[in-house]
């Protein structure tokens, strides 16, 4: 009895000490995530001069002429993000399929070839992209959308390839063979078995590209001559001009949009599980 008692007491001590291991993360969480968010909410709901509670900041963003700009910015952000995501997945899917096939990609060297651009700073990459596009006769000032999307897709393609590649490595080959065996032509095999089996990869590839493209603005700024305004850019603009309160409102809008996309993602992966 005595022995077991001491044992459990010792175990308790281990648990006590282990608790402290999460301290650094706790401090980080409070300092850099919870505190800034609280600060944003404080600014968004307070008067710039008096510091008292007000809805004035929201009104200034969603009322009259400024609401047109706001919705345009939100629309453009969603548009750029959605377009980039769709194009990224369309390009990444066949690439990932080829990379995951050992026939074409014997020791996985090709994977590194596609991930190599990630090793270069993305600002440098974007500036280089701009020069390259101009060299090919695509002036960002003349074709802001085309150039922006090209830049975005180029930057976020690796984020779409990686999750798809990982799912395709684990594809159940025998299910593919079974489908062919049961009379499905190669196209039908692809639609009926390969695509459903890669849904988890598609969902995470979509999240991995949609969320960062929603908030990024440096690439579009550089490649559209600042004609395409995204939420990220709007926040930067407000904060640079000491409009902390209005900037915070934009930050909350972005938070909400990203929150919504997470809900969507969960919904899709839940549905996937339910269908099993």
């Amino acid at each position, binding site marked *: 009895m005595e022995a077991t008692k001491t044992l459990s007491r010792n175990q308790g001590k281990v648990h006590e000490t282990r608790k402290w291991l999460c301290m650094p993360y706790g401090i980080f969480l409070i300092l850099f995530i919870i505190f800034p968010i609280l600060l944003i909410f404080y600014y968004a709901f307070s008067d710039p001069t008096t510091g008292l509670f007000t809805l004035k900041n929201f009104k200034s963003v969603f009322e009259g002429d400024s609401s047109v700009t706001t919705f345009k910015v939100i629309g453009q952000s969603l548009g750029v993000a959605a377009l980039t995501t769709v194009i990224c997945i369309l390009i990444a899917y066949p690439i990932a399929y080829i990379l995951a096939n050992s026939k074409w990609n014997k020791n996985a060297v090709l994977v590194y070839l596609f991930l190599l651009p990630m090793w270069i700073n993305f600002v440098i990459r974007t500036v280089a992209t701009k020069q390259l596009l101009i060299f090919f006769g695509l002036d960002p000032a003349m074709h802001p959308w085309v150039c922006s999307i090209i830049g975005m897709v180029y930057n976020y393609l690796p984020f779409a390839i990686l999750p798809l590649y990982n799912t395709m490595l684990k594809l159940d080959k*025998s*299910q593919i063979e079974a*489908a*062919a065996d049961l*009379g*499905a032509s190669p196209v039908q095999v692809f639609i009926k078995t390969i695509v*459903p089996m890669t849904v988890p990869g598609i969902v995470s590839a979509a999240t991995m590209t949609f969320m960062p493209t929603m908030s990024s603005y440096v690439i579009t700024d550089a490649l559209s001559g600042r004609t395409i305004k995204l939420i990220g850019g709007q926040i930067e603009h407000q904060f640079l001009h000491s409009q902390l309160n209005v900037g915070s409102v934009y930050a909350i809008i972005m938070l909400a949009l990203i929150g919504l996309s997470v809900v969507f993602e969960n919904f899709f992966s839940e549905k996937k599980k339910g269908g*099993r």
Partner: protein
Amino acid sequence: MNAENTIISLKNVCKVFDKSFTAVDNFNLDIKRGEFVTFLGPSGCGKTTTLRMIAGFDMPTSGQILLNGQDISLIPPYKRPINTVFQRYALFTHLNIYKNIAFGLQYKRVDDLSKPLKDKEGNPILGENGEQLYAKRKLTKEEIRAKVKYALNLVDLEGFEKRAVSTLSGGQQQRIAIARAIVNEPEILLLDEPLGALDLKMRKEMQLELKAMHKKLGITFIYVTHDQEEALTMSDTIVVMSDGEIQQVGTPKEIYDEPKNAFVADFIGESSIFTGTVQKGNKIKFLGASFDSDPADEGKFALNEKVDVVIRPEDVIISAKDKGTVNAKIVSKIFKGMHYEYITMVGKNEMIAQSTKNFEEESIVGLSVDPENIQIMKKPFTSNYYDGHLTKHCHVSFAGIHANFDVLKLFPGYRLSEEGILINDKGEERDVEGLQVSVEVGFDDLELSDDPNASDLHGEIINMIYLGDHYEVTVWNQDVDEEFIVNTPDLWNIGDNVSLVIKEGGVEVKLKGGR
């Protein structure tokens, strides 16, 4: 074989992977309509590769596969009227049971009896045999539902339509996999070790059910397994395979009672295998005694020919001491329920025997075997043969090594000079370098050693057959890709790396081309 009765025939089919590994070597087989054929062999013998070529997942490197006389070797799997039950079931995890079974039906096309094909003048278009041809249509939803229900009924899983694959046990998944294949009414059903993942009791049950299903459906079944009991239970015809080649084709009874070679005898059922010598008067000498051999075997073997002798344990008759053909000492006795299994020693040879009678361990008994139960088989060969050439100093080089041999035997009238050069009486030298020879090394002329420095010849043990008083061990040398077969009294392990020592005078050399 009647060509009309043959549903599929494989002609000289070879499959080579990566240009070097031959998985299937010159496979020839005709399979009759409605037959239950089993490909039986140890893992890696090419049985699954053969099945995959019939299904269309692998293309033969050379040779033809004829289905109803039509070459289908290059037709993709989805165009073949053949369905497969996979080893790991391969059910679609994203679909429920109903959709899994209906999967193949959605691609099936049947004759639309309401739309007979007509040419421009309105005359009916007839097929090759003068029958009316019809336009093709998809199956209706009701038809699919009825077929799925029938298939589920057949595998005893009624009411499982809405279930998810992950909620099923292994045995149930196996049944669904079978239902999914047979619902398409294929001409041939391929089964790739379908019961391998089930427990023993379930396996026995499914064996009988599959057999019953085969009877009921009348479809040709091609079944792949490494389980000899399963093959014997279920098949009409067994194809025993080893190293990508067919060893024997026959009914289960033929395969069991009359194995063609030592491999088949060793693989199918339990047996004692000995080396025997054919004697005059239809007798065979083994275990140091002369046995009467099967009258049916008379004249099939040359006098004094070395042969493999196979005795099944249940064919050994145990009697009192000196009452049998040979005396043996019982060294072990195991009660097996129906009978006792005895391991007996006849001198240094081991013989397994079964009997319902009770004998004491350590006692001496007489053993005899009815002549028709003594299986005599040609030994594939009793020596290793290699191509080699002579070197400057009258050594022979073969299989990557140099060996001494009695060179004077090859060149009568010559003698060796002090420099090791052949000289005849007239003082003429003879240059033997590069002469092509064939080299024979008897199984008994080689010794195995686990000392890596014992010789220059090394290899890995890849096969081992127990032949009563010794093991016949196959050693493979990777560098020169040559096999050496060695008789040894010792037990080694497959996969051991060993050195091969050639006994003094063990190398026999013959000149090629009569030079």
